[in-house]
């Protein structure tokens, strides 16, 4: 019955019943689209509640209990197996079999399906379960199974294989020999007695057939290994060896998957297995000689056949056996035994394959290999961890003398429907420097056009001719109608390049930028990448090829993914290369693959050898390794001229012939190993370092005592009480402590040197020390100026020290640091592979030649003579690179004068100056640039840029920038340095400058220089506010410029304490969220230093990225670590001096560290600067208030000099509106450029104060909207209303090219600002998606 109050009929559409007040609101509610994803999720959750469980009868209860017990047994066993199979932990596990047997059981996932399966097979407490292939585990278990690690021991005769405790219990004495041969034993013998006995269901015809089939395959397999295994192994103790074989196999399977830290516990063979390091293990007797590739192939085929048969049998078994009888159990057990043996055979065959490969490759030098988990080829990241698809790759290499130029032509596809900006990252090989960068912008199209098309009348050139071309010539053969317009990079000053790039991106024009980001990675930002289009990026780099084991090596890592096409071609001069080999190596052992050994060496052009290979639709994987013995190993020279009329440039690698004369008297009996445990060492370089450490200690008997100083962002002595004795026990003890550590954090060399200066134990002053630096030396944290670092160390250290550094070929080393450290003794040695380990470990004991002078005599006149790495010491087997300019051609001689073993020596190297090398001029310039950069004086940056521009070199101070046209380069005045090189002799100029080294520039002077540079851009020192800066500069003392002191406690983290984090990290090392989460966890557990270490890993992974530095800086401020934050913000300031926020962040960190003087200077720079108009005036207003607040605090706390206090007082007087009082003040800043984050505050009455409603009735006011990145935005209310204020941030504009697409917003909430009751709290909020709103906090009044 209808109520009389009903205003409308029941048939009226509901919305018409509503008044105008209600309708819009209801419409809005109804208009909201259902979040489909969430709905699906909710429904799934609902379904998972499932039907109610049926009630169980008593009988089922009994079975249920039995099942639970059985499941527990199985769980533990299955787990162990799974654990062994998975083993993702990036930590070494080098326990012996006995140790691992006591390993505790862990919990493992166990799903319902598995449980159900068990229920069907359980009978009176004995379980026989074979999981199918879905489970990826083939577990056999019985009631007698041990619940700890076990190994399969293969008994001789007709005994069946059995599970034996892995605790190293000896096998039966009578079967010792067969046990030792476990993996090699005759399978037919092993399988004797495995004849299939029919189960409860009776034998079926198919089973009988299958049986005979299998037996024949087994027999065939056995024939091959029969007899060969019989002679191997011996003795009663060999049961243990058999088991080790198995364990070794499993470890080998694990390989480097988790990137584990090596054990240092003196088990080199195991290290090799776990680290994928090539090891020359002694071949097993009797096996190697008889094996041929063909036999191995046949064996593989047979094994595959056996596996097939076994699978079929298993399937039959599963179908036919119902219920549990003795015979069915036995059948299953036997089948499982066969499977186990198949595994053993597989492992043995792989082993034999490796041995055969090693034998074949014996002549090729062995080198360390990089972690396969790391990217080895170019990628274009487009945010959120996504990258563009690499469609094809064409690589052409030319080798001239000691140098090579590689041109890599990439084609990427953007499968998205929208235009993108991407980050092109290229992991360069050690010592390489980019020489050319260009891209074709491409267009939206379906298919890949031809790489080189007929152009007009000209037919396309043959591939060989193209391979020989310079990149500049090469791009002229690309059809621009297919590929879009060519845009070539030009070298401009790095800082200008960055600013211009960002300016141009904002203007929506099309720039690209390639710059050095630290380590051996060069990063280019590419814009625009057309939707559904193909982009072509061409990069060329040149490098000095390393010399290892009397071979000159060239390596090119191949992408480990399938490409449409991959082409590689390498050309070298036949006359310069003796016995050249070129092969594709793959895997940890650097073994060429049989099916990929199709390279062909042939004379392509007069005097040239070409190696080429094309992969189509197959993943290339591994790396190309070219090796040859130079025709004149003692002097390799190239010479050529730039242009037609320029001078001749000569570049020569000299290898003086020095006898290995052992240094009679050791320099020191004490040794310290500075062992880098930062993330970048992970894991391959660390493995090499540990091997080196062991080898040095074992080899140099004059080292009586040693200690290890581990460092990342903090440093810690391995033995804080004193030195270890260099005995087997001492070494074992020390190295055991390194077992299973997690490599993490950034690299701070200064903290390590500081610890070395003041060890926590007694170290007599004046006692000499050998210090071995086991690190790539790339500094990503703390003091980065190598010269300043070393100079400070030399001033403070009370002990005479000699540093020894090592190059490994695993990525770029910091040559500047190595050279600075070894300037006064010590040396830099190379250890490119296993074979060089022995020599490298002894190298520091050899007499070295101290080179005093290098000159050219006879022939054309030489000038600008440069020596790479200055006049360093040359050790036997070492090399020296000399470069010079000549005014003509002809024969000349390099004279190397110096001292060796206490005697004056002069070595002569005759060479010829010609004009035939195209690589020589740039090679000379590379030495010039490196020498100038080694001076570490920013005054020379323009000079370095000039050389970089003239010769096409990307360096610390110069980047490649691609702009649309010539006018743009002029508009931004980007080439003002061009041509401004030294008029006189560069060699003499650098020598003069070097003589001044070691005199550290006063900090005040350095800062003034910096200001002068910034002044050119933002007019700091001549504007109306400049007087304040000058006043401050006059008032500040030298100490005021020092960065706040603060160190992070060093320490080692073991995997067992951070398992989840390590696993997450291994899954995606670039995922910033993993580090942030772990940092939060540690901070909550009061391990602030640990949290800082984890955070610093972000910097190690993204060195030099402003947003990463800012993000970590904000987090450090949250963690009350302003001193560390100040260091990071100081880096940001140097990188991005054109952004006022760089100064503001730095000032905040300094203020919190109570370094008011330098903080004030930074605030003044913000106020005085004439910044880009995208930084709104509001910024200055906020900065001024913050500055005023800081000065008031400084005066109140009396933490400044009287001069500074007076200055602050005067400054406060001059400020019109120093700092208003506010009950509530909320300020946000964020770490990313070109993003718009909005601050919203909901007042107690529900009024929302945001950029559209920025003045509320109750007095709340919001500052001007910042739409171009960084902030600040600020809300404040003088008199807060009673109630709750809700603070929110809203992600309005997203820059697609961000660190994982995220923006980290730092929110500071201050109550009662400007009053004595002032209280502040900081929050950090992560914004990921466009339009995301996050509530930060509620503030109650």
């Amino acid at each position, binding site marked *: 019955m209808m109520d009389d109050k009903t205003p409308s009929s029941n048939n009226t559409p509901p919305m018409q019943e509503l*008044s105008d007040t*209600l309708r819009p*609101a209801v419409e809005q*509610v109804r208009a909201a689209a259902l979040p489909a994803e969430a709905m699906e999720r909710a429904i799934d959750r609902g379904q998972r509640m499932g039907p109610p469980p049926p009630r169980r009868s008593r009988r089922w209860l009994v079975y249920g209990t039995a099942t639970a017990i059985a499941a527990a047994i199985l769980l533990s066993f299955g787990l162990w197996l799974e654990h062994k199979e998975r083993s993702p932990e990036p930590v070494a596990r080098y326990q012996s079999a006995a140790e691992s047997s006591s390993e505790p059981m862990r919990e493992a996932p166990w799903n319902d399906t598995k449980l159900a399966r068990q229920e069907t097979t359980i009978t009176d407490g004995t379980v026989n379960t074979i999981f199918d292939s879905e489970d990826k585990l083939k577990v056999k278990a019985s009631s007698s199974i041990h619940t700890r690690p076990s190994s399969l021991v293969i008994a001789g005769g007709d005994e069946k294989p059995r599970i034996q405790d892995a605790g190293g219990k000896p096998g039966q004495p009578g079967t010792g020999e067969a046990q030792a041969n476990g993996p090699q034993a005759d399978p037919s013998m092993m399988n004797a007695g495995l004849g299939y006995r029919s189960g409860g269901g009776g034998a079926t015809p198919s089973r009988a057939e299958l049986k005979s089939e299998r037996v024949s395959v087994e027999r065939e397999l056995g024939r091959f290994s029969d007899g060969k295994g019989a002679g191997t192994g011996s003795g009663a103790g060999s049961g243990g060896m058999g088991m080790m074989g198995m364990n070794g196999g499993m470890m080998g399977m694990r390989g480097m998957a988790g990137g584990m830290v090596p054990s240092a516990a003196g088990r080199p063979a195991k290290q090799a297995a776990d680290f994928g390091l090539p090891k020359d293990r002694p071949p097993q007797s009797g096996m190697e000689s008889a094996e041929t590739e063909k036999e191995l192939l046949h064996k593989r085929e047979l094994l595959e056949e056996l596996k097939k048969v076994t699978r079929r049998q298993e399937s039959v078994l599963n179908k036919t056996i119902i219920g549990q009888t003795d015979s069915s159990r036995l059948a299953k057990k036997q089948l499982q035994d066969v499977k186990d043996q198949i595994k053993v055979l597989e492992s043995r065959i792989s082993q034999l394959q490796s041995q055969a490969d090693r034998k074949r490759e014996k002549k090729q030098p062995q080198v360390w290999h990089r972690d396969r988990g790391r990217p080895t080829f170019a990628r274009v990241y487009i945010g959120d961890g996504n990258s563009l698809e690499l469609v094809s790759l064409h690589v052409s290499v030319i080798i001239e003398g000691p140098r090579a130029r590689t041109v890599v032509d990439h084609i990427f596809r953007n499968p998205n429907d929208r235009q993108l900006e991407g980050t092109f990252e290229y992991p360069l090989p050690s010592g390489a420097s980019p020489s050319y960068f260009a891209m074709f912008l491409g267009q939206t199209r379906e298919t890949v056009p031809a790489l080189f098309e007929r152009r007009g009348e000209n037919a396309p050139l043959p591939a060989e001719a193209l391979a020989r071309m310079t990149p500049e010539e090469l791009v002229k053969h690309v059809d621009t109608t297919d590929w879009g317009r060519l845009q070539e990079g030009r070298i401009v000053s790095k800082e200008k390049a960055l600013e211009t790039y960002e300016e141009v991106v904002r203007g929506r024009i099309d720039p690209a930028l390639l710059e050095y980001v630290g380590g051996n990675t060069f990063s280019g930002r590419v814009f625009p990448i057309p939707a559904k289009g193909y982009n072509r990026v061409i990069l060329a780099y040149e490098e000095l090829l390393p010399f290892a084991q009397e071979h000159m090596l060239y390596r090119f890592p191949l992408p480990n993914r399938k490409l449409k096409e991959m082409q590689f071609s390498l050309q070298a001069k036949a006359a310069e290369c003796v016995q050249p080999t070129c092969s594709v190596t793959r895997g940890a052992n650097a073994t060429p693959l049989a099916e990929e050994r199709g390279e062909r060496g042939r004379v392509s052009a007069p005097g040239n050898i070409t190696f080429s290979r094309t992969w189509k639709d197959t993943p290339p994987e591994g790396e190309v390794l070219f090796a040859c013995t130079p025709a004149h190993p003692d002097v390799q020279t190239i010479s050529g001229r730039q242009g037609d009329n320029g001078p001749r440039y000569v570049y020569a690698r000299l290898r003086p012939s020095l006898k290995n004369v052992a240094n009679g008297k050791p320099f020191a009996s004490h040794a310290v190993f500075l062992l880098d445990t930062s993330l970048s060492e992970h894991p391959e370089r660390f493995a090499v370092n540990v091997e080196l450490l062991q080898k040095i200690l074992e080899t140099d008997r004059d080292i009586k005592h040693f200690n290890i100083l581990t460092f990342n962002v903090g440093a810690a002595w391995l033995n804080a009480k004193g030195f270890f004795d260099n005995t087997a026990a001492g070494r074992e003890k020390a190295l055991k402590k390194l077992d299973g550590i997690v490599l993490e954090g950034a690299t701070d060399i200064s903290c390590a040197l500081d610890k070395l200066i003041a060890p926590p134990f007694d170290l007599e002053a004046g006692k000499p020390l050998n210090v071995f630096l086991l690190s790539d030396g790339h500094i990503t944290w703390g003091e980065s100026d190598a010269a300043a670092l070393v100079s400070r160390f030399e001033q403070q250290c009370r002990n005479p020290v000699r540093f020894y550094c090592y190059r490994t070929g695993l990525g770029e080393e910091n040559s500047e640091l190595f050279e600075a450290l070894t300037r006064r003794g010590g040396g830099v040695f190379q250890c490119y592979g296993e074979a060089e380990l022995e020599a490298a470990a002894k190298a520091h004991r050899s007499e070295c030649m101290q080179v005093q002078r290098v000159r050219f005599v006879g022939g054309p006149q030489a000038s600008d003579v440069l020596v790479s790495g200055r006049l360093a010491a040359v050790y036997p087997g070492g090399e020296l690179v000399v470069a010079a300019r000549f005014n003509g051609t002809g024969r000349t001689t390099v004279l190397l004068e110096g001292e060796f073993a206490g005697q004056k020596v002069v070595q002569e190297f005759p060479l010829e100056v010609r004009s035939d090398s195209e690589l020589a001029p740039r090679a000379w310039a590379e030495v010039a640039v490196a020498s100038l950069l080694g001076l570490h004086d920013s005054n020379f940056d323009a000079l370095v840029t000039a050389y970089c521009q003239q010769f096409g070199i990307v360096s610390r101070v110069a980047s490649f920038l691609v702009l649309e046209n010539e006018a743009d380069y002029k508009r931004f005045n980007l080439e003002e340095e061009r041509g401004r090189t030294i008029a006189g002799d560069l060699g003499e100029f650098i020598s003069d400058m070097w003589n001044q080294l070691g005199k550290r520039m006063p900090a005040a002077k350095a800062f003034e220089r910096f200001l002068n540079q910034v002044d050119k851009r933002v007019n700091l020192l001549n504007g109306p506010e400049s007087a304040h800066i000058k006043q401050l500069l006059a008032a500040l003392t030298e100490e005021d410029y020092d960065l706040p002191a603060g160190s992070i406690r060093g320490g080692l983290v073991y995997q067992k304490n951070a398992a989840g984090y390590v696993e997450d990290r291994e899954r995606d090392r670039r995922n910033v969220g993993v580090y942030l989460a772990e940092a939060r966890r540690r901070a909550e557990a009061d391990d602030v230093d640990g949290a800082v270490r984890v955070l610093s890993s972000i910097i190690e992974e993204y060195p030099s990225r402003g947003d990463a530095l800012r993000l970590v800086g904000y987090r450090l401020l949250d963690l009350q670590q302003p001193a560390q934050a100040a260091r990071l913000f100081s880096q940001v300031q140097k990188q991005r001096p054109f952004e006022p926020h760089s100064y503001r962040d730095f000032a905040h960190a300094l203020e919190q560290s109570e370094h008011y003087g330098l903080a004030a200077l930074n605030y003044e720079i913000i106020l005085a600067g004439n910044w880009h108009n995208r930084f709104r005036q509001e910024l200055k207003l906020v900065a001024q208030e913050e500055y005023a607040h800081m000065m008031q605090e400084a005066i109140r706390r009396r933490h400044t000099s009287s001069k500074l206090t007076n200055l602050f007082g005067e400054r406060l007087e001059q400020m019109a509106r120093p700092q208003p009082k506010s009950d509530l003040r909320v300020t946000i800043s964020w770490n990313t450029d070109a993003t718009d984050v909005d601050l919203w505050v909901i007042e107690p*009455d529900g009024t929302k104060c945001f950029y559209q409603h920025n003045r509320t009735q109750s007095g709340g006011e919001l500052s001007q909207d910042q739409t171009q990145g960084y902030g600040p935005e600020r809300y404040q209310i003088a008199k807060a209303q009673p109630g709750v204020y809700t603070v929110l941030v809203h992600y309005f504009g997203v820059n697609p090219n961000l660190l994982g697409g995220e923006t980290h917003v730092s929110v500071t909430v201050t109550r009662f600002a400007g009053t004595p009751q002032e209280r502040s709290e900081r929050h950090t909020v992560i914004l990921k998606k466009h339009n995301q709103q996050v509530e930060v906090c509620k503030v109650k009044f």
Partner: protein
Amino acid sequence: MTDWDRIVRDYGPLVFATAWRILGHVADTEDIVQEVFLQVHQLQRTHTVRHWPGLLRRLAACRALDRLRQRKNTVSLNGHALVDRDEGPEAAAVEHELAERLRRAIAQLPDREAAVFCLRYFDDLSYQDIAQALHIRTGAVASALHKARLKLETILLETVQEKT
């Protein structure tokens, strides 16, 4: 597919939609859906359900309103905009606010009025359907709707006046 799966699959969207419109918050809605099905799951073991949609709607509306009342002083802050994103964040913010205000007002109504209002105007149910779902008479539905509308209008007008 088991019966339970079918029930959840068939009526899950209905439950979700009812709760979503009342709450406008993804996580809360998901929780409510789970609560509702959990409750129904227990219920159906002891009772026979004759009219699934009615029962589920009632439970969804009641649970969602309970949740709404629990958070009547808070603001919905999840990532889902309540309107088409193309309109821009400013418009989204304004509209979001209107809907939120209505929800807060609904939270102040008595149970029956709130439930009736939501089922009628958010879910477009007829009086009969509402009566069936809530086990009340059709007249009671009309009466409750009338009261609800009046109260809501008053509350909304007050809010607007306060703001201006």
